[in-house]
């Protein structure tokens, strides 16, 4: 029976994360961006919310019953409202943790999941995106070739979050090139492995506070057992789709913040004797922003709901994520436009959201629900 009402638990998660985002994350947004660093104490406090540990069952030292993608996107939206860099930093380990939980072998789960259930934040990274203009997750140039009891990984990655800080990274590589999504596998690779070269920290247009790196794999040999899911491999498209849900929700949260900011400005800023929001040119922009933010949230919820119901959701997740990327750019562009010159200066947050927003077209696999 159709319903748009959050469960009591979801409401609680939403409220908790929303107030954390408002009290702790948002006040640090500008400073983090300017200094290219996330506030460690905020990450530590954020970790205490137990968003990830709450998805991991007790047998792996977590305290969760089962991971719900829907609850996940609700939390992600609030984090995205707070700040995208901080949200992505805080949730970077989710890709490794949830991928292993969802598709790892029992041994992989036992070995890795307890890392994410401790009291202290532990970084973990994911290497998916590659530095080519036509990058597509369905045709990775990075390859992993079986050689006896090992896989040999070769290729270049970029936008690898926290590569320097992480003990392990989940590396996506084509094991059957030309086979599209089904030819891709994931490998749990310790960052210290020979043949892994983490480069200089990247300089990006947005998400400046999030440390991302280029990583080059050159004849990097890992044991066959480090392949996610063991000999069976993994359902890469499922993992990718769940990461798309997270990214779509982050885009919704950030865009909602831009909308709220624009709304407040339009009611307060007076020009020609009345608030600029009294003019349809501004008011209609804001109405369209509001409609599209809600539309994207519903597309994301529906895809996440399908995921939770074990229905096919890959198509829906892709549509939602692409829609979210376009929506975020539209909304944040208007956020700048509505403020005019004031939107262009770094005293105000809209230019930051504008820079962050374009990233959603490129981001893949940087967070997961």
């Amino acid at each position, binding site marked *: *029976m*159709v*319903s*748009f*009402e*959050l*469960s009591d638990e*979801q409401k609680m998660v939403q409220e908790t994360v929303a107030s954390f985002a408002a009290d702790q994350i948002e006040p640090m947004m500008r400073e983090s961006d300017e200094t290219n660093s996330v506030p460690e104490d905020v990450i530590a406090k954020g970790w205490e919310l137990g968003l990830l540990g709450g998805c991991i069952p007790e047998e792996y030292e977590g305290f969760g019953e089962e991971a719900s993608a*829907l609850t996940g996107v609700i939390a992600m939206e609030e984090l995205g409202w707070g700040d995208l860099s901080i949200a992505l930093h805080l949730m970077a380990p989710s890709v490794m943790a949830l991928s292993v939980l969802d598709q790892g072998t029992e041994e992989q789960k036992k070995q890795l999941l307890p890392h994410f259930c401790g009291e202290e934040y532990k970084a973990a990274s994911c290497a998916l995106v590659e530095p080519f*203009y*036509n*990058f*597509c*997750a*369905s045709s990775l140039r990075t390859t992993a070739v079986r050689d006896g009891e090992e896989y040999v990984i070769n290729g270049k990655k970029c936008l690898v979050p926290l590569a320097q800080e992480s003990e392990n990274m989940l590396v996506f590589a084509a094991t059957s090139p030309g086979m599209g*999504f089904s030819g891709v596998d994931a490998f749990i690779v310790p960052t210290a492995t020979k043949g892994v070269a983490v480069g200089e920290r990247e300089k990006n247009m947005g998400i400046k506070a999030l440390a991302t790196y280029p990583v080059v794999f050159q004849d990097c040999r890992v044991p066959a057992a480090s392949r996610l899911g063991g000999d069976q491999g993994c359902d890469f*498209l499922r993992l*990718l*789709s769940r990461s798309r849900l997270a990214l779509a929700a982050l885009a919704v949260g950030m865009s909602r913040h831009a909308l709220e900011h624009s*709304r407040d400005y*339009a*009611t307060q800023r007076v020009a020609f004797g*009345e*608030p600029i*929001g*009294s003019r*349809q040119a501004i*008011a*209609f922009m*804001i*109405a*369209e922003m*509001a*409609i599209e933010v*809600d*539309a*994207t949230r*519903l*597309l994301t*919820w*529906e895809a996440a*709901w*399908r995921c939770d*119901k074990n229905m096919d959701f*890959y*198509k829906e997740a*892709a*549509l*939602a994520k*692409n*829609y979210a*990327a376009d929506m975020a750019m539209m909304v944040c562009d208007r956020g700048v436009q509505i403020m005019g010159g004031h939107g262009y200066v770094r005293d105000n947050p809209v230019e930051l959201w504008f820079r962050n927003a374009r990233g959603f*077209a490129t981001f*893949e696999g940087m967070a997961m629900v």
Partner: protein
Amino acid sequence: MIDFELSPRIKGTKNMIHMFAENALRPIARQYDENEHEKPTELLAMVQKVMGGGVAGAFGTESKEKKDKKEEGEPAKKKPRETNLAGAVTIEEIFWGDAGIALSFPGPGLGGAAVQASGTPEQKEKFLARFSGEKPVWGAMAITEPEAGSDTANIKTTAVLDGDEWVLNGEKIFVTSGKSALEDSEGFVVVWATVDRKAGRAGIKPFVVEHGTPGMEITKVEDKLGIRCSDTVSISFMDCRIPKENILGSPEVVDKTKTEGFKKVMATFDATRPLVAAMAIGVGTAALDFLKETLAEEGVELRYGINPCRMTALERDIMQMEADLKAARLLTWRAVWMLDNGLRNDLQASMAKAKAGLAVTRITQKAVELMGPLGYSRELLLEKWMRDSKINDIFEGTGQIQLLVTARRILGFSREQLK
């Protein structure tokens, strides 16, 4: 608990209506587009027999059983109803079949919705009972005038109380199903007229005018771009006398924004706007379904999930259409779900209509473009859907009016603060 699965009851209805739309409406859709002003009389009689108040329920009134329950005080919170959701789902399927014929279905229409929203129990009994009879009957609504469309405050049709009667004078245009209601059946039209021009919107009241009332005359039946099966008429009122008790709501001219009566009138839009959105979505789905079927037949694969930078222009267009359509449907479901649950939904209703009206206008235009000569040909229905769908961004408040309503709510501005 968030849930996007329709209840078994609604699913059953949806499947049934879809089959009906496919088998009974699609085959004659072109015929009643080419032959404007003709009606599929037998089909409409059959619709009345089979669906009785059922489809009527979808168009603004509720089944007898539900109605009775509702009138017992109507507590704000009670066990969830799905009447409006069922309506939206049903309408989407019928309009998937054909928008023009669907709009000419018998039933209380917007006039009936106004009676339902602001009529007294006696008025509801008197005016709405006729729709569940054997013969098709139509209800209509007359708001628009030659010089007053969305600007209802500018309505010039007057209603003057003379003894036990209201005397109406003025001219109404764009009355959907006006001819069906007044000439082809024993229906009525709800006419919006001012009892006090100086009072602006506060002076404008709805009046029920029965078929055959002297002084009322249909002066024109419009030729239209689309939805040609549905009649759209002009009605002239010349000293048209109706009983005093045919006014809906209070005759008092007060600040209506603070009265219950006005809220009820506005509630009509809260219920009908999502339904118009559902109409749009039905037509949009028809176009997209057809497009995708044709591409599948031609062996064109749509690669969902690949990076947009690698998509063909065709893939991008179709995925955009698909996402827009789905977004519009979800916004619509949210608006009707809120209504079913007794939540204020005026903002969400306008959002849904704004999104659906524009999205489907674009989707059908894009579909014609993508299908090239096949799209442009009257051999197929795509071009018809493009013409039909345009009305959804116009009637029940243009897309721009929806943006205005949405913006006022988001900004917290009154009608005066945001014109």
